[in-house]
């Protein structure tokens, strides 16, 4: 008997397995995202879903992960999958045999060999065994969270690692055969100066990464850091200093031969993160593991962010936050994401996104006039000097 079509809106408020099935079954994603929700310690700025002190749960995690991957494998068209990304949390906190099982489960899904397989790692977790496990598991790219090389600034973030372990981790990964290394930095940490930031840039550049992500610190609501700010115990640094740090980053990385390809991302030519480009070019990606977010066939969803419930289940994870943006909203998102990319949006594509939206068209004109948007090689993009005000511009274009 054919099952009646499921109304998605029905599942907006609660976790739903039926919605998961409806979204995942028969989908043909371009990418896979897997989430490993374990950390050694919770950093004070972090709003990712991750839990500490879960050593007894890592094995059940691997068991359950395999079940989910298995179910997915049987229900999707895996022919288009080109990239995979394992994020967290701290995936490299898994013991090597368990990490190996997770990587294998992921690799078993796509039909073709992946063009890019990235795993996030925290420097202090990269042992030789972990590096070897990554390589053996088919991983060719590691994104390493450095954040800062200065103990007092790491302390301000309650981020627990010794900066000296970063070069060691990079060396171990390279020795094991990881070809592509990306490093993450955070600027605008309370108490930091332009000189501090220059030293951090010196330190990452010395490690010769292929890719860099530099984020302005965000006081995410609900994090201990935001709470401290609310109580007046820390202050955000002056935004003109933060803006100067950003300009500095752009100048120095350009001089070092990096291409600025997204608001917070720089790469050596050809070294952009293909997986993230799937997000930014509104490709389809599939989520595995608790709290992982996916986007399939125009529907966004998130796996239920509750480790216990997820562990108790089999098959697909129930999903929450199911969202099917309307055509107008979806085209607004494409503008938002397209303009966050430094290459911007092709004129023909842009026409498709603004025609029939008088308000959007007027906003584009207005920002062109003010010099916030510019045409460059027949593509519309945010002017260099206005990147730090991107949200001000993008909010007008939705």
């Amino acid at each position, binding site marked *: 008997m054919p099952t009646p079509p499921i109304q998605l809106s029905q599942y907006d408020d609660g976790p739903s397995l039926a919605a998961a099935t409806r979204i995942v079954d028969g989908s043909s994603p371009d990418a896979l995202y897997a989430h490993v929700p374990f950390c050694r310690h919770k950093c004070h700025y972090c709003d990712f879903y991750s839990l500490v002190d879960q050593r007894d749960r890592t094995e059940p995690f691997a068991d359950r992960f395999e079940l989910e991957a298995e179910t997915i494998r049987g229900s999707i068209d895996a022919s288009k999958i080109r990239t995979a990304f394992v994020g967290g949390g701290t995936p490299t906190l898994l013991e090597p045999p368990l990490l190996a099982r997770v990587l294998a489960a992921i690799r078993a899904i796509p039909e073709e060999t992946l063009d890019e397989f990235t795993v996030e790692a925290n420097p202090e977790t990269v042992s030789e065994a972990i590096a070897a496990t990554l390589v053996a598991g088919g991983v060719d790219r590691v994104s390493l969270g450095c954040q800062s090389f200065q103990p007092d600034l790491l302390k301000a973030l309650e981020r627990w690692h010794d900066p000296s372990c970063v070069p060691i981790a990079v060396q171990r990964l390279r020795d094991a055969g990881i070809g592509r290394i990306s490093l993450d930095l955070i600027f605008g940490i309370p108490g930091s100066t332009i000189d501090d930031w220059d030293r951090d840039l010196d330190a990452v550049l010395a490690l010769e990464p292929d890719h860099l992500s530099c*984020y*302005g*610190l*965000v006081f995410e609501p609900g994090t201990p850091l935001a709470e401290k700010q609310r109580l007046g115990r820390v202050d955000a640094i002056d935004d003109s200093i933060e*803006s100067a740090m950003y300009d500095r980053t752009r100048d120095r990385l350009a001089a070092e031969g990096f291409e600025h390809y997204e608001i917070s991302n720089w790469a050596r030519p050809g070294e952009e993160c293909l997986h993230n480009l799937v*997000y930014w070019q509104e490709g389809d990606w599939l989520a595995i593991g608790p709290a992982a977010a996916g986007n399939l066939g125009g529907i966004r969803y998130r796996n239920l962010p509750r480790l216990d419930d997820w562990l108790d289940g089999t098959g697909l994870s129930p999903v929450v936050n199911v969202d099917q943006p309307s055509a107008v909203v979806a085209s607004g998102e494409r503008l938002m994401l397209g303009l966050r990319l430094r290459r911007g949006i092709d004129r023909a594509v842009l026409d498709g996104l603004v025609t029939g939206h008088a308000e959007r068209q007027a906003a584009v004109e207005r920002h062109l006039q003010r010099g916030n948007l510019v045409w460059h090689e027949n593509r519309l993009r945010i002017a260099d000097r206005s990147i730090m*005000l991107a*949200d001000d511009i993008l*909010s007008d274009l*939705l």
Partner: protein
Amino acid sequence: MKVRNFSIIAHIDHGKSTLADRLLHATSAVDERTGRAQMLDSMDLERERGITIKSSAVTVMHEYRGETYELNFIDTPGHVDFTYEVSRALTACEGAILVVDSTQGVQAQTVANAYLAIENNLELIPVINKIDLPAADPDGVSMEIEHVLGLPAEDAIYVSAKTGQGIPELLDAICEKLPDPAPSMGDKLRALIFDSHYDDYRGVVVFVRVFDGSISVGDKIRMMGTGRTFTVTELGRYTPFAQKLKTLGQSEVGYMVAAIKTLGDVRVGDTVTLEYDPAPEPMPGYKEPKQMVFCDFYPSSGDDEGGKRSDFESLREAVERLHLNDASFTFEVQHSEALGFGFRCGFLGLLHMDIVQERLEREGGVAIVQTAPTVSYIVDLNDGSTLEIQNPADLPDMSRVKAIREPIVKIEIICPVENIGDLMRLADSRRGSFRGQRFVSETRQILDYQLPLAEIIYDFYDKLKSITRGYGTMDYEITGYEVENLVKVEILINGEPVDALSIICHRSGAEGRSRAILAKLRKQIDRHQFEIPLQAAIGGKIIARETIKALRKNVTAKCYGGDITRKRKLLEKQKEGKKRMKNIGSVNIPQEAFMAVLEQEG
């Protein structure tokens, strides 16, 4: 049968309404058990606040020395804003009961209302109330009455409106001391309108006191002032329950219904006569109450434009409905750049303004944004003409203005002697000029000052109350308009003058007020991509300045797969926020910024 027409007057809360109830009980008009407390306070708001807002007239019968007396009495409000209600009631009477709380003594409205009665040649019976209370000092208070008002202390009657003690003596005094109504001046109908209210079923109900002749159901009447004619459909009196009558005779008090649709068709103080047998002269009327305090009401902003328009319509309905019941406030449609459509309303005073706002919200079910109160100014122009304005934005170009005059009030404060110094400092700081000082008793004094009305409408009364820890009272009376060194302060945002933010104030206070306004604005306006100067100027000359620094950062650092929906929603919120702002001089100004400035200061 003899008739006694009298009002009950007092300072607020001294027990007029309770005493009126007690008189109803004592004359058996109301059964002790069925009578609600404060029988004569009928409006919900009156009962809840425990204060009387409108007068009510009642008729009861009383036997005294074998004769039946018809007692027509009017309970009046005690608050300073409602002096006009009291003065109307007094014109319909030959006597008044002056109630003074034996624990509070003579207060500001005791004096003000007693003077009103004396001016109207009324016979006064001083009544010292609340003698059941342990703190009562009836002898001291009757001395105060003698001292301040010149009414012999031994004439005062001691009562408790609560227990009924002293009430028989009071009834006797009413019959014995109050004069008979003056003999008729002629036989043609002359009935004075002293109050009116609106009734959903019958339309306007008019209260009249018949001075000459009589009026009957079916009579065709003419209002001598407005010239309008109506046919009487119902006559009666409240006992306190409505009792229909065929006729109201000479010197009687009662109500009249005559298919009058709106309160605007009736002028209190007008004389009613018969259309086909008119009196030659109307009764000397009394002057119309004048609105002295003004403010704007806007519907609190709806979420979208559509919501806003319908909110305005609800507000309009509520205002029009309320006006049927209270013709003493004025209203006209007002459009503010910042707040959209609303109403500019005029009130008799501050309490009146509060009451209207409360009734609009409660009875009309609309949430209201209220701007800071202002007064009306008279502007003398160079060409010899004059202009009355309440809105700084309406002030003509200053090159055409010869002088600006503002309303001046005489205030009388009664307070404990130890607060005199602080109160004088307060009045001095409000451009007050000292007029005199008198003793009420050894512990209390009357302080007379003259000062601009604009200086007392903000927080003067609150300050007075806090300085005297609640013991001080005040009364004020407009004495006229005087030329003052008044200036229009313009507020400029990014170089553009913003009409809705301009104020009129005394030159001496202009800088301080301007600074306060600019500081508020600075907090309310978001930073923009450019630096925004905020300036206050008098005739183009900058007197205060603030700067909103340029925004250097508004960017989302991370926007990966799981962030997209949330980030988009954040941007949508930013967009909605911008939409609700007013764009002036390429600066987006949120409604809250206008509100912060326009709202009551302090």
